[in-house]
């Protein structure tokens, strides 16, 4: 009785079977790394804004406190984007004829809001509260990066849930004293773990990881 299959069929079937497994694994790896890549997370991608507002100039250069513009960061969930009025407090006087600032003046004149592009945007099913994080000693720079060195804003963190949970599970790695929360150039000391553990105790940090803490 002649052979039905040619001997090379063995090889062919092995390649197919193992190849399929490899293809699936590779696809999964590619998908996973794509998900974490800066292409998707937009980490490090500066966003164009209607007015090229520079945090580097205003924070790093002039030394304006975060809370001068983001007024509700200690009181509310939303840190607050300043009304045009806040810009005009200074820019009525300085750079009052600059072409770059024309959209700001136009907004003030016409009473129409400036429309900024969101850089740090959580999905709509996530409810984040700035005030409690600031209160518990999470520095601005911990999540937003060295804003004082950014001419235009970009993300320095993925804002993925695993990133949130990393801190919520081990807050001692990231906390800083309350008086340093708004300090951009604060560097964690060598004994951050000891400091963090002490702050977790002092600030009564009970960072929760239950789903309903953020999703509701």
């Amino acid at each position, binding site marked *: 009785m002649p052979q039905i299959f040619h001997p090379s069929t063995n090889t062919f079937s092995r390649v197919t079977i193992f190849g399929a497994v490899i293809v699936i694994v590779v696809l999964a790896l590619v998908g996973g790394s794509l998900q974490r890549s800066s292409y998707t997370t937009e980490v490090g991608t500066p966003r164009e804004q209607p007015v090229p507002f520079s945090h580097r100039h205003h924070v790093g250069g002039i030394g304006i406190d975060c809370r001068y513009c983001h007024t509700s960061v200690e*009181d509310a969930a939303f840190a607050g984007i300043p*009304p045009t009025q806040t810009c005009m407090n200074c820019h009525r006087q300085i750079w009052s004829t600059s072409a770059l600032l024309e959209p700001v003046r136009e907004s003030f004149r016409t009473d129409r809001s*400036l429309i900024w592009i*969101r850089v740090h945007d959580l999905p709509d099913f996530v409810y984040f509260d700035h005030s409690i994080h600031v209160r518990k000693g999470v520095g601005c720079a911990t999540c937003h990066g060295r804003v004082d060195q950014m001419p235009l804003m970009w993300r320095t963190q993925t804002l993925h849930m695993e990133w949130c949970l990393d801190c919520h599970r081990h807050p001692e790695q990231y906390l800083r004293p309350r008086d340093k929360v708004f300090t951009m150039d604060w560097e964690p000391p060598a004994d951050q773990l000891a400091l963090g553990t002490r702050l977790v105790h002092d600030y009564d940090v009970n960072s*929760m990881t239950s789903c*309903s803490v953020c*999703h509701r």
Partner: protein
Amino acid sequence: MTTARDSGALAALRAQLATLRGAEYWRALEALAERPETAELLAREFPRHAAGLLEPVDRRQFLRLMGASLALAGLGACSRAPTETIVPYVRQPEELVPGKPLFFATALSLGGLATGVLVESHMGRPTKVEGNPDHPASLGATNAFEQAAVLTLYDPDRAQTITQTGAIRPWSAFLGAVRTVLDTERPRRGAGLRVLTETVTSPTLARQLRALLAAFPAARWHQYEPVSRDNAQAGARLAFGRVVETRYQIEKADVLLALDADVLGCSPGNLRYARAFATRRRPRTGEVEMNRLYVVESAPSTTGAVADHRLPLRASAIETFARALAATLGLGGEPPAEGNPTRAHEIAFFAAALVPDLQRHRGRSLVIAGEAQPPAVHALVHAINHALGNVGETVVYTDPVEAEPVDQLASLRELVDDMAAGRVDTLLILGGNPVYTAPVDLAFAQSLAQVPLRLHLSLYHDETSALCHWHVPATHELETWSDTRAYDGTVSIVQPLIAPLYDGRSAHEVLAAFNGEPEKSSYDLVRATWQERHADEDFERAWRRALHDGVVAGTALSPTGVELRQGAIPPAAPAATQGSLELVFRPDPTLYDGRFANNGWLQELPKPLTSLTWDNAALVSPGTAERFGLANERVVELRSRGRTARVPVWIVPGHADDTVTIHLGQGRTRAGRVGTGVGFDAYRLRTADAPWFATGLELEPTAERQALACTQHHYDMEGRHLVRAASLVDYRAHPTFAQDEDPAPPAALTLYPRVPYEGYAWGMAIDLSTCIGCNACIVACQAENNIPVVGKTEVQRGRAMHWLRVARYGIGQAEDPDLYFMPIPCMHCENAPCELVCPVEATVHSAEGLNDMVYNRCVGTRYCSNNCPYKVRRFNFFQYADWETPSLKLLRNPDVTVRSRGVMEKCTYCVQRITVARIAAEKEDRPIRDGEIVTACQAVCPTEAIVFGNINDPTSRVARLKADARNYALLGELNTRPRTTYLAAVRNPNPELA
């Protein structure tokens, strides 16, 4: 390929559907889907998909689809997030912190009477109404109507532009028309001018109307509302010779008798009365004594349902009952014999226990007459309260709250006569919808047509607007300045929460145009009224205080002395013919007089006692149903005074025999997309001589059936101990009766390890003794948690989305059971059956014991719902939430996710409120205080039946309630260890009636 013939057929179908509205539209769609022609048309139209649409899926195709969806399942997450924008203010208002709501005190009125509210505003959008604890008619609670006010505000079907015979006109054109009217009328002193309003309590509106009448002395002001207080006022005139307001001190009464009076459910001051009633319904040994409530009524009401003794009696027989009672109490008159010998014994038995009970509690008893009863009954009740020494104790009289109390039916009749006789040249209708609500025999619409110029101000372009030349869209109460009074006279300033969404005007502004001051805004007018009254004081201070508090201090009416007239009680009219049927009219428990017909929340809110949604029906007793061979949903023809209606039947245990109750407010023809064509119009049977009940009804069953949407079909508990109840005597003898009825299994009886809860452990206790089944909690939950409306067809399929339902169960004989209400939210079981079966961990436990539902993890297997013994989980079978209509986007609570299709959802214990309180407490380095977190259902509850809090804190209110002997877990025998538990109901029946 589509042939011309097919597209013609499709177009015809579309055209056919386009004419339909509301429920009719959906019904038509459903009917369409079932027709064989539709299948054929679909097959021709979509040949490739026809098989998939019309045939069951075969195994191969199923596997292929499953494989594809599995492969694609993860890809959705790998996309970039869409770019979003932030739009800050140009000049940020003071006091406004983005993301933090502000609360403003204002008031919402119904029938002219105000309920003080605090409205939550998110950056200028009113989203949620709460009761104002400082307001005497609210005390922090509201009815379902006030909860649903925000939906009416954002209703896209509201009238949006001023129109003249259908053409859009500017406000200036309207002012021009008014000027022409005034110029014509001035020489005739306004002889041809008539103004028709609803009940007016607003001091500013009254001032403006009086100014108009002063300028045009021959003009007339008429008032009409279908749910008026004519009978109560006429009764006061009989008894005291003048109109007085009757106010009750229910908390002082040990024995109460309500004669056809829904004093807890639907009457002026009902929230306050319900609160006072509940203070005497919590049986704790050594604390306040329980009161006892007797109710004699025709149509079952929530008041009747919570009564200790309830006597169903046809409406016309209640006067006989009251006369007999008066005679027994020695007030003269012969006790008339009850015509129906079969009931006579039962009634005598009831009265024999009631009378000594009332007499034993002189000065601490209270008899209340309902608006539906004729003036004679009100006069009798005044006399009885006098005889029992209750005046000044449990009942007080004050001057009327209304600016101009008139017999509204007579007022409307006068107007109709004038219109028919051609004496009216200009009719200004400020609010109301008289074409729809006027008694049918007055033929209001025909007389209206005789008037040369008709102007109408209303929220919707409704039945009346369609017959008027000019229509001005009214501002909603949340959009305008005004003032209004509560049932006890307390004035509230109504302040706007938002600028008018459309080109709306308030009644004040329209009247200002007639008073020759069109430049004045509502704000100017209201302020002027109060400036006059505070001329000597620091007005600005008083004004700001009134706005802040929501009440104007010192405006409550103080009790006034009244003297009972001799011979106040008119002689008895001949008794109604026995054996004939009676037709009883009631305002709809959720739609009132029909003004809320286009409010989806209220349409879908199950009506207390019947659990019907999206319809009204002819309510009959089981006995009457048997007599006529009726079953639920069977259509009958009702013939009353020469008018007929075809109406589906709904059998209600506890209904009086030989009586048919129908609710007003449905059957609108121009309500809007939601309310048009829903139910039948009960006003078409209502005549001016019998506004509340009519004898001589004929009923004829037809062969038709009409499907109704009911959320709970029967009253039976199927042998389980869901509601546990006892009499006060039994409770005293055996306080732990509820726990012993079905003892919970030992806590260790589970395979899963016990989770310790340190810190906060949230729990809820619901007192079944005080729940009156008003259903306000359901709407409050809906408003707070962005719960969508699903429509009648979906409700019929059991897909209503309410996170909280109020079940009602009957104990005792089936024809007239004792009714109990049981609000059922998620139980937040510690051993939650739902969590074990979720394949994707979309429902898990939080560290504080909440049963969390994670929408973005849910893949819609619905296993959790199948495994939930309480059936509190709701599934979005379709995209129920409206994501398109711009005005409805403003309505959403920004703190709660708006769920999408394919996702399970359920009660979260208002976790957004827990989070807000936790963050506030942690920022102040303190624990959350007891009572700091108030869930939406708890906040709205008039009787404080729902209490939420930390059960780990033994001093918290909820922990103390859970320690009560009456506390038991629903289906606790399943060892689910629910965090929501119930306090068993205790009633206080008269031992002599046992």
